[in-house]
């Protein structure tokens, strides 16, 4: 299987040859790759060099934490890449924004109401978690759609709290 992997705008063509070999460009490398205890911690021995890293799957990208540095990694297999190229780009701009709780916590106050216009950077809601109050701001100008939470309510992580048109 061939993959096109992008790290910080740099593309790598990586071919998985078999369980113990990969090819990057022209180079054939010997790999010994294991999860450590079935965790998102992975151990890689690459041509005798040993690396250990955290690899997390995000919504779209992958995150690799290696020696204190975090890399955003995009992986496409060849087929996906061709399909995408055929369909053309064109991701729709704007649309609805849903403010989701970035962490579980307690809604301290909701500073906007439905139908209200807000400007980018305006504080919409204050969420308390781990004893800190976090101000959640509008990512862009818009009008508040539905407000789903009230002050004093507990929210779960990723729970939708309000929407912005």
């Amino acid at each position: 299987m061939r993959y096109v992997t992008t790290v910080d705008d740099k593309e790598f063509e990586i071919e998985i040859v078999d369980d113990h070999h990969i090819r990057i460009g022209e180079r054939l490398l010997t790999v010994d790759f294991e999860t450590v205890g079935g965790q998102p911690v992975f151990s890689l021995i690459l041509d005798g060099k040993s690396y250990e890293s955290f690899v997390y799957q995000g919504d779209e990208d992958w995150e690799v934490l290696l020696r204190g540095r975090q890399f955003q990694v995009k992986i496409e297999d060849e087929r996906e890449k061709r399909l995408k190229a055929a369909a053309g780009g064109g991701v729709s701009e704007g649309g609805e924004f849903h403010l989701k709780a970035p962490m579980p916590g307690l809604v301290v106050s909701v500073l906007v109401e439905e139908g209200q216009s807000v400007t980018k950077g305006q504080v919409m809601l204050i969420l308390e978690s781990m004893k800190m109050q976090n101000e959640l701001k509008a990512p862009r100008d818009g009008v508040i759609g539905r407000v789903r939470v009230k002050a004093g309510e507990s929210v779960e992580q990723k729970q939708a709290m309000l929407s912005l048109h």
Partner: protein
Amino acid sequence: MFNKVLIANRGEIAVRIIRACRELGLETVAVFSEADRSALHVRYADEAYLLGPAPSRESYLRADKILEIARKSGADAIHPGYGFLAEREDFAAKCADMGITFIGPKPSSIAAMGDKGKARATVIKAGVPVVPGTEDVGNMTNDDLLRIAPTIGFPLLIKATAGGGGKGMREVRSIEEMPTLLASARREAESAFGDGNVYLEKLVEGARHIEFQIMADSQGNVIHLGERECSIQRRHQKLLEESPSSFIDDELREKMGSVAVKSAQAVDYVNAGTIEFLVDKDRNFYFLEMNTRLQVEHPITEMVTGVDIVAEQLRIARGRQMSYTQEQIQMKGHAIECRVNAEDPFNGFMPSTGRITHSILPTGPGVRVDTGVYLGFEITPFYDPMIAKLIVWGETRAQAILRMRRALEEYRIVGVRTNIPFHQTLMDSHRFMGGQFDTRFVEERFSMETASETDPAQAEIAAILATLVAHQQNERSAHIVRRNERDTSNWKWVGRWERMHR
């Protein structure tokens, strides 16, 4: 003389206190909330009692319940740790009423230092320099504060009278933004301390935050154990501390140390405490506040002085003389502490919660880890995000930094995101290595991206790692689709599938 100590706290500090009690042969009583049934302090203590539901207000802040448990269990002393009830004079007073030894200062000392306004007034009288600010104590209205602000001058700080830990603190650059900031400071102070009172203080720019550990016994001996450099902060929360400070020489140490001792004497202080100073670029120092309790970062002082501060606290609370005189306190080598928080440094230091599914603690020469969590423990949103303190000691500052770098790389915690990468980046920062930083360093001149340039070889390794993981996952899902092509028994396959989706 007491024999059984109730620890009115949780997490790493409760474990730390239990350890000292154990070494001294004292019995220990833990208290815990519903969220902490399986916490380490509960498992280590001789006895453990449930306080109530997870929120602090219904558990660790329930002084009445804690005193009731002390009575029931026969505990004749209470160690409050830090936070929660540690700086509540009414709690210390109630302990005394019940004949229970409060391991800490007298209620009157807590009161004198606990109200930041009164504390300023008290130390000014003792001839201790303070940062210019509102001299008036008590309930100042927003109108009062807005009127006084221009006479102090901008930039200034709004601070909570009952405050600590940066809660209820706001920096004000101009009079225009002050009303909004006053409101949010009062709101945060109200929710954190149940007291929305605030005061103003001039913002000393380019300042370092340097504090002195002091100890005092009931015989009237007061000594200091040198300083801790605490300038590495974010939103007024300390992230890293070191001792000694590379900014201070022996002469200044002696001067500040004697002022620290004087400040403690001004409130007739007994037990361990900390005097916090701001030190400006020209090495002028100002009293900031006194923390009338054991401090989070006390281990670095223990590492360089060899003094077990918690054991001394217990000794002092038993009415005995301290084991040390000022002359016997020598600082040797250099210690650094990194606070490991469940916060994602790549995502605005957002708190992270979850179950710890993998954990390897760093060990080896000169390394100490104080923690209350372990594999399988759940990090909940109810308490502080600090999950561990990683402390190292080295002969020199350079050796300590190298050792910290090594220990951070060894540390593995999976299940929550931690700020370990922040500390790693900091250890590589030239300004940090050179000791060139102030309290604004992290917020204004530090970035997770620019601190070290990307090594192209590392990017390639990252690409390979991610691709291998993605490939492994693709293979697995392909395996699930092609049901009939399974090469193993159905039972084995179901087992693997379930493990994968757990």
